[in-house]
């Protein structure tokens, strides 16, 4: 308790000090006792703790200065700190030592103590060297709001703390802002959009005492509230629509974004909001929504780069999750502790990895597969499909059950049928028409194979010994060897305009292999790879059809790879169109999705080299693939024909075997085929199953997915990594929370759920403080702690420590009620002040950290754009859904993207997609939305809890020239001409009320009239310019309006849209 009081006293004293950006080293009145947290710790942190701090590994001389026990311990008869006796304290001796070798800090650190700092340390020791824990690690308690002189100013308890600071600095609060200003400010802060002019006027007219509260409540209950709050959260969650690394392909992630918006709109208490995002998947009876929420931990960047090492990336993913959670809920820069003990904060390397263990237990794999739905995922049906979704799942289970039952019951019928079945009928179903080569390759011995080519049977002898192995549609199959291809000179010689098809049963020796199974292709030097082949490309089957590689060629493979070690029927058809679209690839009779790499065939493909099995003419072979029943047709086979070929060869073979020679698996295979083909009841159930599966598929297809967390079966653990390197594992550690914070309760599971509940426990010193500070920052521009993501020793001290604690306790005790919290802030007198500032306040409170005036700062990029669209009447109010692609200059994606990326080409939307709110814009991590990035939007690669706010000429170019701003200006001008009355003044006023939420002043109107005069003159004299200007953007200008007039007002709107006051809130 005493410590608490000390801390509070210290906090109060801070407010007495003259304020110049930092509160730490300011001069204190002689009379006030030295305080460790306020006065001493900053000096130690800056100069000493790097070597004598919490980092055990880097610690010099085994001395630690930030903790009482260690600093005052006697070592070799002396102590660094001897309470009450500076002269005997080694610390003082060394910092004042005349001997450069002994002087601390050593010259190699390039640091030097200032005389006043030395004096402070001496005084502190003389006064008894009282230590304190770092302020943010002590749980907040609600302090009494201070007494103030100007009682009448106070509207909420918040105001007492603020006014206290203002009065102590000898300042007066600013007068209340006028009603229009306050309406604009609160609308922008609660919804991210400007107020409707009629709402502003209604508020101005409403003289009832509840007028302001009504206005606030209206905004808090609007749907735009959730969008606006959600936008800030998405920066912290590093939400984006691509994976981020290498290909930077699409990631279908927006269901999480929509969850965030809805959660704010439903005013989900912040503790639930936290628990569902960190552990929604682990909640008992979890809902789909709670699973979607767990996507917070799936927003991190991932890779699929060839050659990347899995473990390295798994370590990075876990680290990112740990650092993000630490930033967002603990306000700690945990990243430092990945390599060594934290230099300044009480977070050891071991503790970092213990904490990381919570996030190291996912089933997610290292490689994202470059796909949009990297597992683990769940399907998220559209809301209108929810009912059917449940029903269909039941139907599928029922049909499945019926099929199982029938499968058990019908065996007798099958057994009776089997002896009557004829293998010949199956063989007859194999397409024969146009077959130009058939090589069964079932000999099983010897060095030759018999092939049927052009109706003739020939014996082909291999150069080297053939290896045989058991077959799949015949007793034996041939094993390919690339050093001894089997050649058939007369087979497979096709022209590019000729249709042809080819395929075989194959079994690949290993996953991911690359090479040609058979080919008629000339790959000798300088021959341009002319011809065609049956290729396996990283396990994916397909074909090259080439005149001259790569510029004159087709390359098509399936998107899926063949499973290695398993017999697969592979078939490729080509229709002679010289187009990749004319190629189809089938696996086991099913047509595959195509992956087209080249599609530029123009020249001939004839080549004189023979058809070769096992490789091309000289190279690119495949060793050890089993191959059987190779067929080439001089025509395209249809899908059903390919199926007949697959079944005919396989079933024909199985049926032709004597009953005793069939294995149980083979018998089951035949039984399955029989059930479908010849058993009506099974077929009925199977048809039902297929139909519900199709419906399920359709629901999945039109719905979206959610990336979710999924825990592995075992207990969470991680390895301590030497210097953070993934391949330098040290001790394994179990999941745990840092020692400097309250312990994880014994009854909580040691997983993410336990961790999340721990964060939200009342005795937690950080989570509530860090959260209210971030909310404060959203409204006032700067947090009470300026370093939003660093509440540690090196972070800045709070400007109003007591207010921060009061707000944290208030927020928690209100049941973590977010709307209530924001209402508390925006109804304060502090918030409602005018932003006007004069020299006195600029001198004493230059950065407005005392809140001696109302908040005024440049809005984020999304808000600047949303405001322009809203003013122009273009903004589409739709909430949620897939991300959109509004206007963006050509080539922004193309300039950075890899050719293989599916987010390489930016194809902008048309219509509605151009005019949605900024938070719906597609976020490609390698190239974030160009205009917003210029306004300091983060790239969302990593967690961002505080955006920068710069003021650059590039920003001016955006709002002056970007088509979306010019189009918005024209639409605003158009509305002004139609709805804004007949005079220049009334029209300018119309524009101003939509941008500034106020009418123009007399002086301003004079400037506007002059501008309008000059613009009218130009566009009257240059009608071509007028036409060009009003044609900017996809929306069409009203042809009934005079083009020159519209152009003049467009530029006037453009001018006003760029006002400093418009860009500021």
């Amino acid at each position, binding site marked *: 308790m005493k410590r608490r009081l000390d801390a509070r006293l210290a906090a109060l004293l801070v407010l007495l000090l003259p304020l110049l950006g930092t509160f730490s080293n300011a001069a204190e009145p002689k009379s006030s006792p030295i305080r460790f947290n306020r006065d001493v710790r900053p000096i130690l942190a800056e100069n000493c703790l790097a070597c004598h701090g919490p980092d055990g590994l880097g610690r010099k001389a085994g001395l630690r200065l930030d903790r009482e026990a260690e600093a005052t311990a006697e070592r070799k008869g002396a102590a660094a700190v001897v309470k009450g006796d500076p002269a005997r304290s080694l610390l003082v001796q060394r910092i004042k030592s005349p001997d450069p070798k002994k002087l601390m800090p050593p010259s190699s650190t390039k640091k030097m103590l200032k005389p006043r700092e030395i004096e402070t340390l001496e005084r502190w020791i003389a006064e008894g060297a009282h230590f304190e824990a770092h302020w943010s690690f002590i749980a907040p308690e609600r302090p009494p709001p201070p007494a103030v002189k100007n009682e009448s100013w106070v509207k909420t308890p918040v105001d007492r703390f603020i006014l206290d600071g203002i009065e102590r600095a000898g300042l007066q609060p600013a007068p209340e802002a006028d009603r229009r200003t306050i309406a604009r400010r609160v609308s922008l802060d609660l919804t991210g959009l400007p107020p409707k002019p009629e709402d502003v006027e209604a508020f101005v007219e409403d003289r009832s005492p509840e007028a302001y509260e009504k206005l606030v409540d209206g905004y808090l209950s609007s749907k735009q509230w959730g969008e606006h709050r959600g936008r800030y959260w998405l920066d912290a969650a590093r939400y984006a629509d691509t994976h981020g690394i290498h290909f930077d392909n699409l990631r279908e992630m927006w269901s999480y974004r929509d969850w965030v918006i809805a959660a704010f709109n439903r005013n989900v208490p912040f503790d639930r909001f936290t628990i569902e995002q960190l552990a929604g998947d682990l909640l008992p009876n979890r809902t789909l929504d709670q699973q979607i929420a767990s996507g917070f931990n799936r927003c991190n960047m991932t*890779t699929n780069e060839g050659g990347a090492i899995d473990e390295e990336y798994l370590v990075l993913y876990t680290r990112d999750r740990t650092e993000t959670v630490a930033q967002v809920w603990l306000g700690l820069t945990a990243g430092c502790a990945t390599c060594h003990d934290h230099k300044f904060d009480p977070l050891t390397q071991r503790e970092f990895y213990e904490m990381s263990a919570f996030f190291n237990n996912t089933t997610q794999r290292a490689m994202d597969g470059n796909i949009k739905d990297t597992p683990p995922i769940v399907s998220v049906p559209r809301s209108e499909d929810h009912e059917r979704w449940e029903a269909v799942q039941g139907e599928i289970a029922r049909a499945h059950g019926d099929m199982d039952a029938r499968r058990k019951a019908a065996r007798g019928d099958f057994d009776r049928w089997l002896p009557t079945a004829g293998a010949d009928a199956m063989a007859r179903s194999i397409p024969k028409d146009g077959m130009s080569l058939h090589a069964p390759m079932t000999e099983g011995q010897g060095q030759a194979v018999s092939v049927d080519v052009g109706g003739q049977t020939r014996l082909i002898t291999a150069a080297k010994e053939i290896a045989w192995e058991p077959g799949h549609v015949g007793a034996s199959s041939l094993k390919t060897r690339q050093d001894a291809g089997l050649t058939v000179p007369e087979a497979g010689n096709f022209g590019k305009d000729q249709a042809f098809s080819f395929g075989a049963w194959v079994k690949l020796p290993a996953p991911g292999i690359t090479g040609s199974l058979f080919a008629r292709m000339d790959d000798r030097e300088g021959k341009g790879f002319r011809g065609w082949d049956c290729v396996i490309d990283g396990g994916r089957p397909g074909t090259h059809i080439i005149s001259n590689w790569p510029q004159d060629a087709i390359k098509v493979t399936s998107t899926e790879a063949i499973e290695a070690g398993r017999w697969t029927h592979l078939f490729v058809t080509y229709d002679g169109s010289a187009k990749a679209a004319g190629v189809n690839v089938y696996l086991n009779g099913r047509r595959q999705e195509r992956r087209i790499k080249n599609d530029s065939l123009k020249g001939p493909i004839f080549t004189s080299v023979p058809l070769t099995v096992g490789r091309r003419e000289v190279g690119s072979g495949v060793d050890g693939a089993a191959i059987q029943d190779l067929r080439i047709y001089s025509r395209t086979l249809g899908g059903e024909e390919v199926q007949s070929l697959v079944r005919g060869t396989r079933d024909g073979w199985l049926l032709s075997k004597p009953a005793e020679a069939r294995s149980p698996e083979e018998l089951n295979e035949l039984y399955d085929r029989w059930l479908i083909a010849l058993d009506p009841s099974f077929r009925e159930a199977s048809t039902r199953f297929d139909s519900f599966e199709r419906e399920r598929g359709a629901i999945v297809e039109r719905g979206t997915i959610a990336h979710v967390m999924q825990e592995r079966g075992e207990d969470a653990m991680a390895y301590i990594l030497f210097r953070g390197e993934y391949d330098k594992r040290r001790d394994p550690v179990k999941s745990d929370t840092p020692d400097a914070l309250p312990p994880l309760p014994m009854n909580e599971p040691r997983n993410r759920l336990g961790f999340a509940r721990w964060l939200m426990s009342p005795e937690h010193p950080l989570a509530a403080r860090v959260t209210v500070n971030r909310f404060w920052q959203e409204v006032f521009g700067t947090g009470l702690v300026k370093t939003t993501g660093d509440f540690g020793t090196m972070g800045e001290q709070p400007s109003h420590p007591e207010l921060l604690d009061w707000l944290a306790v208030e927020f928690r005790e209100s049941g973590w009620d977010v709307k209530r919290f924001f209402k508390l802030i925006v109804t304060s007198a502090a918030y409602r002040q005018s932003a006007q500032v004069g020299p006195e306040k600029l001198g004493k409170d230059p950065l407005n950290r005392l809140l001696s005036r109302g908040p005024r700062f440049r809005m984020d990029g999304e808000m600047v754009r949303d405001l322009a669209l809203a003013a122009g009447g273009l903004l589409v109010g739709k909430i949620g859904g897939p991300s959109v692609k509004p206007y963006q200059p050509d080539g922004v994606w193309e*300039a950075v993207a890899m050719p293989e990326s599916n987010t390489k080409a930016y194809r902008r939307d048309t219509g509605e997609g151009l005019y949605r709110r900024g938070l719906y814009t597609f976020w490609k991590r390698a190239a974030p939305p160009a205009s917003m990035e210029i306004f300091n939007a983060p790239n969302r690669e990593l967690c961002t809890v505080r955006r920068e706010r710069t003021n*650059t*000429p*590039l920003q001016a170019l955006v709002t002056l020239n970007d088509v979306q701003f010019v189009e918005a200006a024209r639409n605003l001008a158009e509305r002004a001409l139609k709805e804004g009355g007949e005079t220049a003044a009334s029209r300018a006023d119309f524009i101003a009320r939509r941008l500034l939420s106020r009418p123009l002043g007399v002086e301003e109107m004079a400037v506007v009239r002059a501008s309008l005069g000059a613009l009218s003159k130009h566009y009257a004299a240059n009608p071509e310019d007028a036409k060009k200007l009003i044609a900017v953007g996809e929306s069409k200008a009203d042809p009934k309006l005079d083009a020159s007039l519209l152009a003049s007002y467009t530029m006037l709107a453009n001018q006003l849209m760029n006002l400093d006051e418009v860009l500021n809130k």
Partner: protein
Amino acid sequence: MNPFEEFVRYESRRRFLSRCANAAGWATLASIVPHKVFGRESAGAPVLVGPHFPPKAKQVIYLHMVGGPSQMDMYDYKPVMQEWYDKDLPDSVRMGQRLTTMTSGQKRFPIAPSKFKFARHGKCGMWVTELLPWTSKIVDDLCFIRSMHTEAINHEPAISYIQTGNQVTGRPCLGSWASYGLGSLNSDLPTFVVLVAKPTNTEQIQAISARLWSAGYLSGEHAGVSFRSGGDPILYINNPDGVPTSVRRQTLDGLKALNEIAYKSVGDPETHTRIQQFELAFRMQASVPELTDLASEPESTFALYGDEARKPGTFAHTALLSRRLVERGVRFVQVYLNNWDHHGNVGGRLPMQCKDIDQATYGLITDLKRRGLFDSTLVIWGGEFGRTIYSQGGLTKDNYGRDHHPRCFTWWMAGGGTKGGVIYGETDDFSYNIIRDPVHIRDFHATVLHLLGFDHQRFTFRYQGLDQRLTGVIEESRVVKELLA
């Protein structure tokens, strides 16, 4: 007056002037100008950074070869390897080094000697591949390091490492550090410009994105501004259709007048900063098109750089643009040329890559010398790692592929206080391990910062409670004195 004082005085004055005109956009102006003039964000900025001693290199052109060029096919001549054709790389050489998963599954590591001829050039006698006939003429101006090394073996971490000193993204790159430390020399152009050149062949392209030229934890104004080869060189630089300069000027005049009225009533200093930003934007609208318009270049320029220099986006065009940027006072020009990732077909692709850079590089160095810019401009050439002596995939005498190799690779520097004709460091016969004078990329960074006038240990930025450095907070590094003139 001693030269350092003179420099500081000159530099400060220039900086002051340029920053006033420049306002917060391009430089840490707030470091000099009292916060009354500029906005709140600026007012919190740290004190003047400035160099620790007079820089030799005032400007930098850094040509990054994305993908990792093959050192033994270009600069690291290994004649002995001819006798090792298709023999296995001895385990004693590989020493269990980690490999990428692209070759870690290979059964053999057969040695692929370079198929290209080498000859000695210049007074320094540097061995250079036949693929670089123009560059061979200027070897005495270049300072070669054959012993660069890194720890990263995949592109993303490696390129991030070599440009920002850290394998994990989010740190400021070399150009941002230069901008942070030295500020701007020009009031109408950005301090740090990025140009992405397009290679002739594009089969082995690697990802390059804005994260490489981001300012990391430094203030956003130190991020590189990427000039585009297609469309507008700077985003949104052009007025909308139907808005001539005169109309833009009129609207800006009105805007300024209205902003002044607002300033009078509210008193927010940031309003004045904004007025200046709009004025700078207007000046850029004039200066950027002038910069990228090559009409004023005489025929001799194109004879020097090659005809390709006329084609926007080519490396030659980019090289020429780099010179024009340096001439106009841009502090740091970062160039990227992609497609050096030759996992296969070195025989086919390397000649194309070399052709892309050869004459243009010669042209750039020669041009800088003729214009008296060479001594104050540091030119850097290199990729994020080297390539393996053993072949990836099939091997013939004429063709082979090479995997990533972090343990040695060749870079060169020129001008800006470096010593021409130096050949530093040596690798073993396999161009696999360094046997003499290793230069870690941190050493390289320390050396470049030295040339820019900074002691890398004192050139810091406070972030996450640490004095962050390009060369790392705790890691060791040294300035390679042997490379300095």
